[in-house]
């Protein structure tokens, strides 16, 4: 199998385009998320994205604030204990972004159905509520009959709902570790990264660590995304920042709040873009932007023992630089 390591900038220019149906994993407000990939999409000026995700994240918040997406389908639009997502709120309340509501199980089932190439998935949830009867995409259809249409169980005659399956063109999934071929292990809950990796037409991984394939041979049960599903692997430690990566770093409380505050206005969003997106290019510059004090703080968390079994296979920065030169993309 080929070495699929790719530079962040090249992955965005090669695999994303305006107007695409895009998804990120885990798609979470505080936890695993491909935040740095989203920042590079902003830098490269992507527009018109139709975003499928479990939850709002700082990536979704940024996309809404910066005008990158105009449609979102999701189960949750907040940042949990960090509060409402200001970028999302502004965009949805002004009508600039259409936000179609689902639940976490219905998004999971939609990815599962997409992965299995099913025509639809029977729903025992979201029916009998406004998640079924109201549609932001079809605002004049009420009660909406085409978002989650009725479907009759052919065996019992009982009526349930039919969930449309989800098939993103591209899924960019944050993982704790991957080898150069795209075999990935994640620590913490996977949410629907397993199903999403199989529902999407193309999958790119954003990995905190690059590990030797011997790690996967030691723990093959833990490889939930195998290389055959993966187009490319971006080595990018702290790529979920300011969100957390279980086993590695915590969410950055100060920056989670500061970022959300900035995304609350157009002026703040411009400031965010200048300071946190356009000001850096290399990984070293990105780390300098987070800052040594913040890195020390987020690395000091109660989950670091989860990473212990894998450390001996982790590639150093020097090794990664060498591997990048041997990649099929170099």
């Amino acid at each position, binding site marked *: 199998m080929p070495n699929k390591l790719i530079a962040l900038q090249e992955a965005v220019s090669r695999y994303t385009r305006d107007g695409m149906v895009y998804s990120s994993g*885990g798609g*979470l*407000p*505080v*936890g*695993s998320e491909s935040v740095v990939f989203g920042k590079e999409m902003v830098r490269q000026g992507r527009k018109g994205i139709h975003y499928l995700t479990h*939850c709002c994240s700082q990536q979704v918040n940024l996309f809404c604030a910066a005008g990158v997406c105009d449609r979102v389908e*999701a*189960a*949750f*639009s*907040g*940042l*949990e*204990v*960090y509060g*409402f997502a200001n970028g999302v709120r502004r965009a*949805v*309340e*002004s*009508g600039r972004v259409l*936000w179609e*509501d*689902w*639940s*976490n*199980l*219905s998004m*999971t089932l939609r990815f*599962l159905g997409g992965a299995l190439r099913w025509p639809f998935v029977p729903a*025992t*949830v*979201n*029916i*009998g*509520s*406004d*998640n079924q009867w*109201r549609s932001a995409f079809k*605002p*004049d259809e*009420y009660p909406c009959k085409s978002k989650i249409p009725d479907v009759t169980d052919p065996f019992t005659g009982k009526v*349930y709902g039919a969930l449309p399956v989800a098939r993103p063109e591209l899924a960019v999934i944050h993982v704790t570790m991957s080898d150069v071929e795209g075999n990935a292990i994640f*620590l*913490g*809950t*996977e*949410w*629907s*990264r*397993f*199903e999403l990796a199989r529902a999407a037409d193309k999958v790119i991984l954003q990995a905190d660590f690059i590990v030797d394939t011997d790690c996967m041979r030691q723990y093959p049960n833990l490889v939930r995304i195998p290389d055959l599903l993966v187009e490319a692997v971006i080595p990018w430690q702290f790529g979920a920042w300011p969100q*957390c990566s*279980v*086993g590695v770093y915590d*969410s950055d*409380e100060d920056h989670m709040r500061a970022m959300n505050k900035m995304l609350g206005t157009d002026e703040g969003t411009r400031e965010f873009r200048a300071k946190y997106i356009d000001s850096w290019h290399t990984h070293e510059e990105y780390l300098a932007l987070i800052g040594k004090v913040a890195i020390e703080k987020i690395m000091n*968390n*109660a*989950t670091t023992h989860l990473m212990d079994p894998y450390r001996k296979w982790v590639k150093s920065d020097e090794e990664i630089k060498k591997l990048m030169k041997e990649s099929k993309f170099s």
Partner: protein
Amino acid sequence: MEFTRQEMMAVATGREIRDGDLCIFGVGLSMLAGYFALAYHAPNAKAMTEGGVYGSTPVGGLPWGIEDNRISANATCFTGALDALGFLVASGRCDLGIIGAAQVDKFGNVNTTGFWEDPTSPHFGPPKTRLTGSGGANDIACGCKRVVIMLAHEKKRFAEKVDYITSPGYLDGGNAREKYHFVGGGPVAIVTTLGILRPDPVTKEMLIDSYFPFSSVEEMKANTAWDLKVSPGVKVTPEPTAEELKVLRAVDVTNVLKRT
């Protein structure tokens, strides 16, 4: 005994958990109520999150999110949403779910999606105020055997009709849930900042079951937009005991209760 309204609310919610229950909690106050119960009277209850963290207790404070490090540090199992919300909640295996609400109506239907200028309009325009949406709450409301709803008791939040049904309670009341064949039983309690409402066994209308020691039937009615009825056996909710408060405050190491 000195205690805050939020502490009374958390303890009252925690008392809804029975030893041995399989439970699912949201972040914030509902998680605090849940972990208080596990630490106090329900040591054999099991807690999980919507994304599939099992067997853990928060470390270093209440979690920022249901997927973060504080809830992941001592887990016994990590799986995913299909397992937690599907195999364990949609299947009917989960005994109790605790969900928050921004607005609730007399049949226990919950709105966490938004507020609209005219929620009755057939045209579904942008909300005046966008809230968080369902998360896993709709799934919990459909699938858990028992659901407990927590919210502040204010007139604007206790509406005749909610702006948007995010998570179904008893819909139009009576046996309305049967039409959708929901596996779960619906809300057994709404725990507010003033007292506890429970459904009438037949009509499923939420009635005042008890009021907190610092509140009254009149105060609860005055803060409700519909004609809130009173259960025949209405009583005062027992105030938190010294031991309950001690355990609750120990669980609340980051002082969530002081901030809410």
